[in-house]
């Protein structure tokens, strides 16, 4: 499922973008070192293939609803992790731009959730060890199934974490996880079967093809797992640093997941801190002067609720609403004005 801009905070969006750009830079640098030129059109066309394959939907047994291919795992198996990550990134970019699936700020999150996990975690750590160069179709089915499920579970859990850390949603952690993981278990099973089916089909119809592509990209055998892991560890440290930062400001930082009300306060406080470091934007949140800047973290929510709305003078909030109506009216008038002006022009 695509993460959406509207649910995202700048801090979380930027962090995930940074991670994605780092991995993307690493992948393209690695690829450039050993790539054959013929990989470039192949990668591009395979990206388009993922779109086309998504058009072919099928009935999910027993439910009557229909599903389609996601693509991360199949690309990783065919192209190897680096190339697959770039293809997945480009597929998601096109989805973000043309279908507005997610949005541009959430694109970092989406590439991370649907590209990084299948390509750089699941493929080298689960699929490869399970498959061990075997061409046994049963083994391919088992390995694809486990990998697809693992990749989608990781992705779904990431969506939960990103949403909660952004603090725009009121959903408590437990309920959100219970909502997302089972849905993605079902999707993962289907993704696994389709992936295995396609790989097996290609294996039987054109056995030389898979080997060839791997040879061309020369990534099949010599993936430098160590470097991938180092990148991952570095990123994990960065992410962990960001997380522990708010954990240390609030010793009981993990309780936010259970206790929604107090937890939200801490979360917002932390995010505020990061955002301030990043941009210093919050310094100037002038509309509600004491909004969110109370040093007492745990009472923040209450303080916020008290000061933001009922505490504010009735006149201020009424003038805010009046102002909003006027501004929107003006925007509509401007729009209609330009439109009619253009119409007369044409």
């Amino acid at each position: 499922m695509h993460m959406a801009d509207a649910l995202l905070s700048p801090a979380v969006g930027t962090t995930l973008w940074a991670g994605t750009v780092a991995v993307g830079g690493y992948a393209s640098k690695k690829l450039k070192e050993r790539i054959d030129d013929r990989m470039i059109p192949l990668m591009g066309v395979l990206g388009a293939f993922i779109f086309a394959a998504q058009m072919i939907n099928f009935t999910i047994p027993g439910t009557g609803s229909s599903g389609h291919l996601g693509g991360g795992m199949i690309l990783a198996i065919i192209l190897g992790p680096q190339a697959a990550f770039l293809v997945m990134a480009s597929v998601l970019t096109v989805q973000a731009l043309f279908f507005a699936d997610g949005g541009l700020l959430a694109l970092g999150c989406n590439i991370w959730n649907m590209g990084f996990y299948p390509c750089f975690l699941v493929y080298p750590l689960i699929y490869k060890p399970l498959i061990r160069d075997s061409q046994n179709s049963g083994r391919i089915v088992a390995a694809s199934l486990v990998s697809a499920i693992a990749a989608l579970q990781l992705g779904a859990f990431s969506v939960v974490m990103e949403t909660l850390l952004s603090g725009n949603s009121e959903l408590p952690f437990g309920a959100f996880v219970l909502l997302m993981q089972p849905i993605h278990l079902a999707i993962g099973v289907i993704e696994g079967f389709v992936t295995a089916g396609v790989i097996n089909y290609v294996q039987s119809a054109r056995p030389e093809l898979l080997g060839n592509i791997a040879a061309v990209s020369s990534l099949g055998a010599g993936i430098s797992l160590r470097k991938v892991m180092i990148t991952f560890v570095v990123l994990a440290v960065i992410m962990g640093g960001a997380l522990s930062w708010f954990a240390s400001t609030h010793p009981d930082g993990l309780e936010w997941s259970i206790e929604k009300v107090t937890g939200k306060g801490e979360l917002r406080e932390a995010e505020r801190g990061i955002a301030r470091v990043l941009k210093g934007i919050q310094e100037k949140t002038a509309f509600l002067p004491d909004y969110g800047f109370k040093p007492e973290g745990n009472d923040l929510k209450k303080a916020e609720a008290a000061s933001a709305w009922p505490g504010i003078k009735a006149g201020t909030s009424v003038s805010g609403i009046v102002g909003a109506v006027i501004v929107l009216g003006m925007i509509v008038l401007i729009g209609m004005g330009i439109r009619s002006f253009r119409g007369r022009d044409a």
Partner: protein
Amino acid sequence: MTFDTLYFDIGRLDRLSYRDTFVHRLDPRAKVIATMLFLFTVISFPKYEVIALTPFFLYPVLLLTVGEIPVRFMIRKIIVVSPFAVFIGIFNPILDTRTAAVIFGVALSAGWISFLSILMKFALTISAALLLIATTSFPGVCHALRRLGFPALFVSQLLFLYRYLFVLMEEAMRVIRAREMRSFGTRNTGIKVSVRLIGILFLRTVDRAERIYYAMLSRGFQGDIPTLKRSHIALSDLLFLAVMIAYLGAFRFFPITEEIGRVALELF
């Protein structure tokens, strides 16, 4: 929405980008940067902010009107992708029931306000992204990314994807049509047949990639896709960016909307 309409929608968005208006003529780089700034500003508003978000609708409205983009088409595209944000956001009114304000005798809970804020942010961010494509064209955005320092490999990857998207989607549509005609009204056949179809599509794709590669080799391909179109930052682009930054900054840091309301209330 079926994939047929999806397909035609991409084509339509693509055609819109070939118009010739002031917005279309701006340098792609300026528009990419402006869009990112816009998105960042909108997202940076705290969760209960509704009123201060209203002035930000001016930007999409201006792009829509000056760029002569059909409004209804855009609204439909925005609604189509709304389910996830709405689905997650709708829990706010249910879970966050503290009364936040009483407006005209109706008690409004904090959850509804944050939900409204999510919806507004959603509409703003999605329309900004769609309008970027509708006024810039996808290749335009790609070349802008290349100039802004994105890896050449990734950018040529995007360009290839875009070029063959239409070709392969048409191929898939032919396959689907053939299947539908033979399956007598049962719209979706089983997973087994679909997997076969995807497999066939994959084989055809790989063969096509091979042909493309040889065709490109014979035309002197060396791993990068250059563009003949020389673009340079003109005065109007800098002006556009400056106005954009002033506009975003002003409405982000100063409570202008509220001031307008206060002045209006004092007048009447």
